[in-house]
């Protein structure tokens, strides 16, 4: 995983609450056995007027011009601004894969669904929870200023803008540590290999039925 230090980029506003992972990446794209290549299909049903299929070349597909990401103003955005309960529903990690593959590295929202929030950190995406009035202010600012960009710095946990915006954000220490170092969590857990093995041995002695083979 790529280490996350600082992201400076254009902010795209997605003014909807309860955006579910089915909307982020529809089911037909879940048939892929790879982690990459989902970006062109991000928000597929909102973004295009036709029905998309996996592997399809999206360059000639009819765009839904009412959908915010199709507005030229937000081309190349790396920060997604949205509302409450983003990423609810299915646990599909294809959702953060699609978001990252499209180019977003930061998501600013009032709240996130638990599984999606956790999945973001495994993929080098920084999901940031802000208060609803802060989110509302940002929506207004993005609307008012074409090219509205922000700088998000993980080490100092600050969102800033040259014009004076400075918003601190909270983050769990372990997640910050893994993200900032681009750490492979499995490698870190395996450093506790002996502890897992000791636990497992005691667990097996106390509850042997848990270790029965399923054939």
């Amino acid at each position, binding site marked *: 995983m790529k280490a996350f230090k600082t992201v400076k980029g254009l902010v795209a506003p997605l003014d909807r609450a*309860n955006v*579910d992972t089915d909307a982020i990446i529809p089911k037909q794209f879940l*048939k892929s056995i790879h982690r990459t290549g989902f970006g062109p299909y991000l928000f597929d049903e909102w973004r295009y007027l036709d029905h998309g299929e996996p592997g399809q070349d999206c360059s000639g597909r009819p765009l839904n011009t009412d959908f915010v990401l199709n507005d030229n103003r937000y081309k190349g955005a790396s920060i997604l601004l949205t509302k409450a309960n983003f990423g609810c529903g299915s646990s599909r990690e294809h959702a953060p894969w699609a978001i990252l593959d499209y180019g977003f590295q930061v998501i600013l929202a009032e709240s996130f669904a638990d599984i999606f929030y956790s999945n973001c950190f495994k993929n080098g995406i920084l999901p940031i929870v802000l208060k609803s009035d802060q989110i509302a202010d940002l929506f207004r600012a993005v609307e008012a200023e074409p090219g509205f960009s922000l700088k998000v710095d993980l080490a100092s946990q600050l969102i800033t803008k040259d014009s004076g915006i400075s918003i601190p954000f909270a983050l769990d220490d372990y997640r910050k540590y893994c993200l900032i170092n681009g750490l492979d*969590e499995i490698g870190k857990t395996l450093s506790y290999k002996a502890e897992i093995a000791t636990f*497992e041995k005691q667990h097996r002695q106390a509850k042997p039925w848990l270790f029965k083979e399923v054939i």
Partner: protein
Amino acid sequence: MNTKTLYDKLWDDHEVRRNEDGTSLLYIDRHLIHEVTSPQAFEGLRLNQRQPWRTGANVAVPDHNIPTKDREQGIKDPISKLQIDTLANNTRDLGITNFDMSDSRQGIVHVIGPEQGITLPGMTIVCGDSHTSTHGALGALAFGIGTSEVEHVLATQSLVQEKSKNMLIRVDGQLKPGVTPKDMILAIIGELGTAGGTGYAIEFGGETIQNMSMEGRMTVCNMTIEAGARAGMIAVDETTINYVNGRNFAPKGDEWKQAVDYWQTLHSDTDATFDKTLVIQASNIQPMVTWGTSPEMVVSVDGTVPDPEGHPKADQVRSALKYMGLKPGMPVTEITFDKVFIGSCTNSRIEDLREAAGIIQGRTIAKNIKLALVVPGSGPIKAQAESEGLDKIFLSAGFEWREPGCSMCLAMNDDRLEPGERCASTSNRNFEGRQGPGGRTHLLSPAMAAAAAINGHITNISSEYGN
């Protein structure tokens, strides 16, 4: 003093270590695998030259993509076939048991776990699927994970987790006849909202739950995630133990006795405290139906579609009504259907099929219903239903009787809605496009879906039960 909740007990019994930042490393007893969220995890293991920590902890089954008819012809969609073959190859290479399409035990992952005794009380159970919360009905800690965590569990038999807060949902009294566990959980989601459970593990308790069958409890825990909580759970009691007894992979003999002794401790202590408690009166719950594009957009069958004017979530209501093609203020009983789906990890168990067949018996589906599907949750459920003659009831009414799988719940196979089609569905999500692009989903109970098939529109089934 004994003050632990059921969740606290399950957590403490699996905590390998507590990290400095307050997260814990939890030991995972059972890992269920399906074809959609696992290929990238297996690939990750290979790239890093890692082996599964404990092969026997894993059980796999294809369910999401699998065809529900003409199976002898194989899987026609080459992309689906590749994914299912990839699961077969990955599990074979690593020696992981896979109930493939030809195995009589194949079915929806959350149905076959409890059915086979693969998932048991007291276990930590994970799967790359959000409806893993289903297994909490057994008195287990069960939750959905992403693909990175699937790889983490395969490699380390553990997960780094932050402990959730405790919520108790107590349901007092008796459900009225014709009101099912599905109606109860839909009513709860309506009250809590789709994010009301975020950050919590929810325990369901109270008289209504105590009197509920295991099938009903699974329906309730299954949809906990629709209220935002990763895990739902119910204390172990006689109903749980009787359900587990004799299952294929349940403990036997002395181990059974030892296990039951432990399982009987799996309930919240009388002095346990919860961060949040919600009390619901069962007798207030009516048959429920969703009208919108989120499970919280739900109303009782005698209600009307909301009006966005003056509504606290006016924008969301307006956008949902537009997608759903419904008028504000219309009675929900005027909603008519094109298709009916009885199935999914929420409602495809034998009790669900009996409930639907009870309504359908001797009747036929309405003319406006283009397709009515019954998709049993597993091979054994299908066989059981056939031995009871339920298949005949469905078939003679005009339903199709299919092979087990996720089917039209998420429409990854050929079972789907066409744009604009409206479906009465016993599944768990009414998101835009969930059952097919442009499709419109109304969630309801198997009995309500059956009545919708017969009458062609939403019907208040209370009258069938003399309410």
